[in-house]
């Protein structure tokens, strides 16, 4: 249990020494290279006003965008991963966890919180790509599972925001079983007739696509997001030629019938409010 202490200390240190650096003043769009002030960029929900490029953001930003006055109640905020396999590749898994915890100031790759969206109750589980590639392990599965328990108990609609490279290899079959776990829990939510909206963002691949991300009553996506099961590199190797343009983009997935809608982040809250109203009334 020594590493548990280390992780705890890591968490305390990271909170204590949380650096209050002054925000950089400028943001340069990584797609069209246009320069915006960071304030403008944040006001536009981190979407480039020039080319509509959606910058990858995390749970902190999504909660701010969605919840009224950025007010929400977070569940299980101290839940951290165990290391049941004592997994080591080029680095010990526990070191990897600790480093990520300190670096990102997050505890794992998903946060769950409930609050109001233009007055409508909503539970939001949001993935953080910065934490080990947004990979799904025991913590992600358990937090979604407990969030669904809350939704069933309180009849609160659920939204899961996916942004993930897939299952977390360092948890091996445990991470695989999180697919089973979340899907099984979603079957209970469905039986309780509580709406589940899945928001797929860039990127959503692997085991996340093959479980909760594709199981929404509504599947919606941010424009141009990479969405797929197998990664593009693997598909390219399989077919032995270049992939068609636009393959595995949100637009491609919509065209093939697996999304209900593509919604720009700037309109997300408004559209979501309408959907919640339509489900409710």
């Amino acid at each position, binding site marked *: *249990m020594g590493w*548990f*202490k280390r992780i*705890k200390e890591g*968490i305390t240190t990271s909170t204590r020494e949380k650096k209050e650096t002054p925000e950089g003043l400028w943001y340069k769009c990584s797609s069209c290279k246009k320069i915006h002030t960071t304030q403008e960029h944040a006001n536009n929900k981190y979407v480039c006003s020039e080319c509509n490029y959606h910058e990858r953001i995390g749970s902190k930003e999504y909660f701010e965008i969605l919840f009224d006055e950025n007010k929400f109640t977070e569940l299980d905020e*101290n*839940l*951290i991963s*165990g290391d*049941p*396999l004592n*997994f*080591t*590749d*080029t680095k010990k898994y526990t070191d990897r966890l600790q480093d990520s915890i300190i670096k990102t100031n997050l*505890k794992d790759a998903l946060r769950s919180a409930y609050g109001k969206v233009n007055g409508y109750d909503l539970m939001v589980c949001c993935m953080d790509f910065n934490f080990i590639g947004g990979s799904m392990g*025991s*913590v992600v599965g*358990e937090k979604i*599972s407990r969030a669904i328990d809350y939704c069933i108990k309180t009849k609160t609609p659920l939204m899961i925001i996916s942004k993930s490279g897939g*299952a977390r*290899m*360092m*948890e*091996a*079959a*445990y*991470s*695989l*079983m*999180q*697919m*089973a*776990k979340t*899907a*099984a*829990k979603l*079957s209970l939510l469905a*039986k309780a007739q509580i709406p589940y909206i899945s928001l797929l963002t860039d990127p959503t691949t692997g*085991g996340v*696509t*093959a*479980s*909760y*991300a*594709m*199981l929404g009553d509504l599947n919606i996506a941010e424009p141009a997001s990479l969405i*797929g*099961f*197998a990664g593009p590199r693997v*598909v390219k190797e*399989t*077919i032995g030629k270049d*992939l068609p343009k636009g*393959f*595995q983009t949100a637009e*491609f997935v919509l065209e*093939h*019938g*697996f999304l209900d809608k593509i919604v720009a982040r700037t309109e997300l809250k408004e559209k979501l409010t309408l959907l919640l109203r339509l489900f409710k009334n």
Partner: protein
Amino acid sequence: MAYLDFEKPIEDLQKELTKLKEVAEKSKVDVSKSVLELELKITDVRREIYEKLSPWQKVQVSRHPERPYTLAYIEHLTKGTFVELHGDRTVGDDKAMIGGFGEVDGQTIMFIGQQKGINTKMRQIRRFGMANPEGYRKALRLMKMAEKFNKPIVTLIDTPGAYPGLEAEERGQGEAIARNLLEMAQLKVPVICIVIGEGASGGALGIGIGDKVLMLENSWYSVISPENCSTILWRTWAQKEKAAEALKLTASDMSLLKLVDGVIEEPLGGAHANPTEMFERVKKEILFHLENLSALSPENRVEQRIGKFCSMGVTMDAGEEEVEK
């Protein structure tokens, strides 16, 4: 018989035995005593080797070219009563996923499983047991039919993964697997899943949500193959042995971790060394578990099935003080 690299001592002895028999044939000398001794020695060496197979060696056994595949089990168990059913009713019929009704000791069972090809041509047609979305959708169609007519379901898992092709992506591989996970969790009939060879990732799990999930002794089951794990985490193909160990993907490890419900022992030398014996052991397990599961109400089964998968995972609350054990 094809031999794996670590079976070299067995292969050598087997060659010796063949030679001895040939010599005896020509010279008409009685060598029966030597033959018997050699045969006993082969058994001993085989036992020695198989008693301490490494995880990677088990992966090799799971992929042995002569290892029995899904249809071989079904044909043996159902004694000519198996009726294969085809098609997902939407796109086509996936040859990498097979299914149908068959009778085992008077009980109708819906069998479903990935099927690997038994020769070069069939391996292509069956895409090495890698199903497309329509394979998973066919599997779900058959499971729903089994539920409708109150027949238990047995799935046999043997796949290096879901097919990562262009059309598979167009037709929603992710959605197809996800849908199966959700629907299988709620099936009202008993579901038994057995990993008979390779259990790779979502492609395996897509027919793997059961009341009882069992693994053959030399099968493997994990989130990724050892080779791909090695490539991603070590950035080289060469660490596959290490990856196989780290993943804890063997039947005994998976059972210890309670990620599967049990292990079915294989005959000495693996399932391919004595397929008939393997089929009989699998049959015994299926009938045993079906009897137990049939005693539960459908609601009970679903609740326990969901409860089992929901208990999987290891987390802790960093906000609480450490408890000394």
